[in-house]
């Protein structure tokens, strides 16, 4: 902990300032502060999950532009399976599965046929749009709303309590971030994953099955994109609309980059954009200043471009992302 503090002084200071400001504001108007944070967190959840899908994939060397499509297809499947079978959990499960299957598909085709991963991802998005629009039926409803839970004690905390209450996916998101970080940076799996994304031939000569691991990882990551989709159609709202992912998959990619391929920083980035949005709409509602909502909306995109253009040296993508691994080359 002390070591972490020493290494991440500026992050710690920012976190402290944010906390002080947030609680200061909360002290002045607790309801408003809490509802703004809830608003921001709800916006962030699918973005965080989507960004984690990207982080795991790219850390393993597979670029996934198809997160948008995975989310959309999962939102669709989750909703309609639940609506048609009357079983919420079957819906959730099939949504997650669809995300995973699409991830597996992407990685498998990329590995076996060495098709350009970006093209594949784009194609996946188009396919997801086509399929979900065709099979879309109006007038279906979920058998019931998703249950919500509160974690005892933690959910009673002032302000940050909002992180510990809500539907199952919302509740699990925070732990998923933590788990992904731990898995990537503290476990054997993580070491190997980072190795195959950075320098696959080194991993190969160390006896690691690069391509197999890439497929498995992208599949697991697909579960998270699936969760993001299910969250959108079953937890955040209780309906599916055509093209409801509305670019959130791409925004998740932006957040992944903004978060420099680290789970924690991706969470921070998503929250930052969520909060910016919350603040702007609150200011507008209070008629304090009129910041056009569009400017807030485009903030993440512009900031991502700036990060990429200005901090190119400091923010570094996994070296071998998007490059097919062929045994025997490069050694």
């Amino acid at each position, binding site marked *: 902990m002390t070591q972490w503090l020493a290494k991440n002084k500026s992050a710690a200071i920012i976190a402290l300032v944010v906390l002080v400001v947030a609680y200061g504001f909360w002290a002045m108007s607790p309801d408003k502060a809490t509802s703004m944070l809830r608003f921001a967190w709800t916006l962030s959840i699918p973005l965080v999950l989507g960004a984690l899908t990207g982080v795991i994939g790219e850390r393993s060397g597979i670029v996934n532009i198809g997160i948008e499509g995975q989310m959309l297809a999962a939102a669709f499947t989750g909703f309609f399976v639940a609506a048609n079978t009357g079983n919420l959990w079957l819906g959730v499960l099939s949504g997650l599965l669809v995300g995973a299957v699409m991830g597996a598909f992407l990685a498998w085709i990329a590995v076996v046929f060495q098709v350009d991963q970006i093209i594949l991802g784009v194609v996946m998005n188009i396919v997801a749009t086509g399929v979900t629009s065709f099979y879309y039926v109006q007038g279906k409803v979920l058998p019931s709303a998703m249950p919500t839970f509160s974690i005892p004690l933690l959910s009673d905390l002032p302000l940050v309590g909002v992180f510990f209450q809500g539907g199952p996916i919302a509740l699990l998101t925070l732990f998923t971030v933590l788990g992904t970080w731990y898995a990537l940076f*503290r*476990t*054997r799996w*993580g*070491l*190997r994953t*980072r*190795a195959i994304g*950075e*320098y696959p*031939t*080194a*991993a*190969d*000569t*160390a*006896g*690691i099955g690069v391509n197999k691991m890439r497929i498995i990882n992208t599949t697991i990551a697909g579960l998270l994109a699936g969760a993001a989709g299910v969250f959108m159609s079953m937890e955040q709202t209780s309906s599916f609309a055509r093209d409801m992912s509305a670019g959130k998959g791409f925004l998740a990619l932006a957040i992944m980059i903004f978060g420099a391929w680290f789970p924690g920083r991706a969470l921070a980035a998503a929250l930052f954009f969520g909060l910016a949005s919350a603040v702007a709409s609150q200011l507008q509602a209070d008629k304090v200043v009129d910041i056009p909502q569009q400017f807030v909306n485009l903030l993440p995109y512009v900031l991502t471009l700036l990060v990429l253009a200005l901090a190119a040296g400091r923010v*570094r993508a996994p*070296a071998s992302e998007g490059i097919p691994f062929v045994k*025997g080359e*490069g*050694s």
Partner: protein
Amino acid sequence: MSERILDIVGLTKVYGSVRANEDITMHVDRGEIVALLGENGAGKSTLVKQIFGLGRPDAGTITINGDPAKIKDPTDASARGIGMVHQHFQLVPVMTVAENVILGHEPTKGLSLNLSAARALVTEISERHGLAVDPDATIEDLPVGTQQRVEIIKALSRQVDLLILDEPTAVLTPQETDELLAVMKELAAAGTSIVFITHKLREVLAVADRVYVLRRGKTVGEVRAADTDAAGLAQMMVGRSVVLQVDKADPQVGDEVLKVDDLHVLDDRKLPAVNGFTVAVRAGEIVGVAGVEGNGQRELVEAIAGMRRPVSGTVSLSGKDITTADPHATHAAGLGHIPEDREKHGLVSGYSIADNLVLNRFDEPEFTSGVMRDFGAIKENAANWIQVFDIRTPSGELPASSLSGGNKQKVVVAREMSAKPKLLLAAQPTRGVDVGSIEFIHRRIVEARDAGAAVLLVSAELDEILSLSDRIAVVHAGKVVAEMPAAGADRTKIGELMAGGHHEG
């Protein structure tokens, strides 16, 4: 008497119509250092890759510790006590030393990686064998010599009986080389057998117990290092068929064409690679830059060609300053550049041979009409140079990827000659090329010089430098440490100078 670690009998490996290894028989005993000596393309790497499970022999057996079972893959090889340090290091640049060492056989504690065990492992091995390295350092921050130490530690961490080192000294400084040789001796004394590939005689004589000399895929000799000397080894290595002696007339030297003055250039890692390099080449002469690879030659060539911007100093071509010129401008100024890496820079493998023959001449009036390309002229040009350079292909319209290495290199050389350059910059012009093509390319380089071109030849092959050059500049640590006429130049003395020896004059 001694324990046999590796026994190879009648090994043959065929690629297409070429026998890369033919009927090779060799063995390694415990604690022995065995050198595989041979020229580029002699089949050394092919051989050791099969020992490490990267490729299977077409005939013959490899027996490890008495077990003749086939070696399935590198994992299998490691499990059976074989470790390999590749020529290109297999280290993840962004990870620490400890992480790299344990990759693939990680110690864990519950779910977590046990990094402190990893650190202890690295420290233990590095202390035991005198391989000083910080387990928490990030690989990409380490100098090449230290990275190699990490590679060795990595191999040793898996209980190796036999350690294979593929050209381990190619990228090392002389000091680093000496350190490595000391480590090798110490490892052997502790019971680890070592096979190492090299084409440097000095190293063989310094550490090896026995030497196998390979030539054109076959073992042409096995000898105890104590029973031979450099001359004997060289004769075996080269044989009688490949005498790289080029007949050439005395140079007709003209005006100064290339002038490099106090040039400083950084490498990819932003570290100084060229440190005050000065050389002049006149029309009609070949100046050879001799040196151990990695002493700034690549950066020097790229800086002269305009592919890398120097930090300071000047480069001029026929009096024109080209220090900061880009490749287009240096080409226009009369520079022909045979790049070191033809696959990466010299060719577009998917393009036709004809297009490759005008790769950097695409916008010259000869090959254009207005904004359009003149396909007639391009085709004619191809037909001509395919004939002149005896490039073996049925058609100039075929992609360059259909050619063999020697013919690819001929395409590059033909193209650079075709522009009639004032200065020919030839970097490793015969690397990975068959003997016939080597002789052909050498003759062409001499012809270019006789036609009045200035030639700067950069090569890691001292023989090539000696047989082609009129003058020799020996480079060490990015600067010229000695310059001499090629006539009567002493091989041994140049070798010492290349190694940073103190023969200043």
